[in-house]
């Protein structure tokens, strides 16, 4: 493994039915349909997710219009705004793993509704994994203030940054995330993001 990259096994992420229904595009005020096969889907999703993450810490510098992220440079104004006052960043990638994708593929057969739910479960699992990682990072850097996570593709931060992210974190080798030519991540339930860090007194 490359210098300065950390691998975290995030363990089992509890299912959060409310979140899952939200990812399945059911607003919180609407009652779930009577026969919605959520139980069944949760049952077949059990043990599917294997949330793992890699992360790395970089100094953050401003070079005129450019932001030097340590692993790449960008002119994104939105990211600059998000990282206002930060002196360092944490870059991470997190995935729910390949088995999750297979369970989604399996659920889709014969029932698009199950497909939708399984897809939502996958989203909840990887997001839950990211949350757990972020809590851990906040504990690991107690004297720093951490911003929310910001992903390539948000605002004016180009999705093409994914290439540099994959390279920097050696994602293929460390946690098995690879990119397609159209910059999709496989496994599909994967997230990459940047977190800004600033001194607490600056907050």
């Amino acid at each position: 493994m490359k210098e300065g990259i950390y691998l975290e096994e995030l363990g089992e992420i509890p299912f959060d039915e409310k979140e899952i229904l939200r990812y399945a595009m059911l607003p919180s005020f609407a009652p779930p349909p009577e026969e919605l096969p959520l139980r069944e889907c949760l049952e077949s999703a059990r043990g599917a997710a294997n949330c793992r993450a890699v992360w790395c810490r970089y100094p953050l510098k401003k070079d005129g219009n450019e932001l030097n992220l340590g692993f790449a440079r960008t002119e994104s104004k939105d990211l600059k705004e998000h990282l206002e006052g930060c002196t360092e960043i944490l870059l991470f990638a997190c995935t729910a793993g390949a088995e999750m994708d297979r369970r989604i593929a399996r659920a889709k057969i014969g029932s698009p509704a199950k497909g939708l739910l399984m897809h939502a479960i996958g989203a909840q699992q990887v997001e839950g994994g990211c949350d757990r990682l972020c809590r851990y990072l906040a504990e690991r850097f107690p004297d720093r203030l951490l911003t929310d996570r910001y992903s390539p593709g948000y605002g004016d931060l180009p999705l093409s940054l994914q290439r540099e992210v994959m390279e920097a974190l050696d994602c293929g080798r460390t946690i098995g995330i690879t990119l397609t030519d159209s910059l999709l991540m496989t496994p599909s339930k994967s997230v990459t993001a940047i977190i800004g860090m600033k001194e607490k007194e600056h907050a």
Partner: protein
Amino acid sequence: MSFMELLKTGPFFLDGGMGTLLQAQGLRPGEAPETWNLTHPEKVTAIHRAYYEAGSHMVAANTFGVHPQRYDTAVCEQMIRAAITCAEQARWDAAATQERFIALDIGPCGKLLKPLGPLDFEDAVNGFAEVIRMGAYYGADCIFLETMNDGAETRAALLAAKENCDLPVLVSNAYGADGKLMTGGTPESVVAMLEGLGADAVGVNCSLGPDALAPIVERYLEAASVPVLMKPNAGLPQEKDGKTFYNVQAGEFAGQIAALVPKGLRIMGGCCGTTPEYIRALCEAVGKNVPPALEKKNRTVIASRGQTAELGKNPVIIGERINPTGKKRLRKALEEGDMAYVLNEAISQEERGAEVLDVNVGTPGVDEPALLTQAVQELQAVTDLPLQLDTADAAAMERALRVYNGKAMINSVNGKQEIMDAIFPLVKKYGGVLVALTLDEDGIPGTAEGRLAIAERILAEAEKYGIEAKDILFDTLTMTVSADGNAAKITLDALKMIREKTGCGTVLGVSNVSFGLPEREVLGSVFLTMALERGLSAAIMNPLNDRMMGAMISFRTLTGRDENCGAYIRFAGELPAMQAAAMPAAGSGAQETEAKGLRRAVVKGLCREAARLSRTALESGQDGMELVQQEIIPALDEVGQGFEAKKIFLPQLMMSAEAAEAAFREIKEKSGGQAEEQPSKGTVVIATVKGDIHDIGKNIVRLLLENYGFAVTDLGKDVAPETVLEAVTRLHAPVCGLSALMITTVPAMAETVKLLHEQAPWCRVMVGGAVLTEEYAREIGADGYGRDAMAAVRLAERFMKER
């Protein structure tokens, strides 16, 4: 001693980490190690030399990341040549006495294979083939495939090596702490596959330290007949004062590995974080210890991506239902390329206890090699049961075997010389457990002795190819007892005789015995029991049939193979539910209420209720079309309008759509195909565009369009513009729907729209997907923008009206 002899005797020492040492020499983070072959060859050489001098028999040239997915061919060639030159220089310079070899080192290509990723299997093979030919040309002594974390990619690389050079191939996979590959492979399934393909050594490297890898290595030693290798990390990376270091020191590292040598480990080295010091310590720790002699494991094992089935212990249930012989609906599905039907059959058999699935897609008018390959790939995306590839077409068998991720069951060969000449080379090349039918040019012998004679001939022929008897199962051919009263007896006698005389396993398709007789499963289940009693290793049968499954499960229970009768109790517990599902619904009650109830059931999204009510209404004489027009369509409209008004949400809409579909299915079945003559509203071709693999949204659109009476041809995901055009032209489809979820795939959508407008001007194109807007859709020239699935239905209706 030759390289292979050294490997087989052991201990054979590999090298340690390369990347870490290059970093210490100044390789910057993000800089590719292989570039140093050209820019700093002296440093690469020095590292190899240090490993040779520490005791390594083999160093891996610095080519891990060289792959056509990353570099131009010319650059690949320069790097490989330079890398091997460095290693050769080191071999020459080194002050060492042991024999010294150079491996072409190959890592993952950086893209994931289909179905999980975008890379086509043959493209992966071709990429590795290029690198392997270069490595062989520039003088590598062997090929070292390492840190492979996907079984399918490992298969592609090994196949490329076997097809493009004569060098020995060592294959090393990277396992997670859960003992699995990233894509789910287990030590047992990986070993079965790799040995089948002819790997010369197998093993594990990277990801973990020696103690954490030891249990995985022990599983390898238990399963493998070829030499096993191990190349762990120096423990786990830790940080101190901003520096990364690994937490297992050389002495400890060496001791943990050396402890495995008496258990049979014979090839060893280090991965990330290890240095020449670690290898020197390892050589010292092993000292004069020699691993026990290599031992052939005499097991008959088939494997999928992540599961294995051993034949010869418990009788194995092979699900027979994916076979179009005598199955009209499956035949139709295959002719139309409707894989969903095939996949459903697979899942229902798996849920009912099948342990292997037979896959036969041979039906007149289909391109069997293409269809079988597609079926195998799609099945493996949704089920991890090992497959039995069942075809009489050798070309279809070869194509399917290439892509099959695992070690397949191959059905079949027989005593005909021509067939043996076609099939044995495939088994030799791709591996597999072969089903051999006891018939030959003269037909099926009428005596058990005759069938045994054929079996012996087949075994003799297999031996010429080096195919072991343990990888052959004999099928003594079930004949219909109604045609010949002695048929079953001869089959069973032959079974027992072959089992005893050859020691080989056996397999029978049991259903055939009762053909033409009433209450077939009574006879069939007893025949199955009799065959099991005579040592049958596997039965090709219908797992959805309670009586047949009951016989199989009872046999296991009665022969001490079912702890605490657990399997039997589970089976018995599920029986009433299965029988209820098979019972026709009670056919009383007023039509009015049933119909009204149906409408409510669809609105509420109650699938089973909708199916039951439709069945009841139909049985009491109500017209199917009337049900559709007066109940189902109004229900769908009600839901659709609610959705548009944001009173009903996506999961509810989908449940209603599925309930409607369940009702339609009943109506179709009842009308015995007549419903199909009813004209559809029009043909719609739908697809997710090239480069995009999101299909949840597209699937919802398909379901709703079908609900509303359109004939939908779904081309799936990642579909090239030309493929869309081909389908639209062939079907003269008036409407096409395209989906794209990513900003990066919108150009592919624009290209598809353009192509359709140029070449199929009659077709109107609607688009949708997360990144699209009305405006964006117009910009790329689409004829309509579907905000959601309902909007797509409305658009399709409008396009049809405007024609």
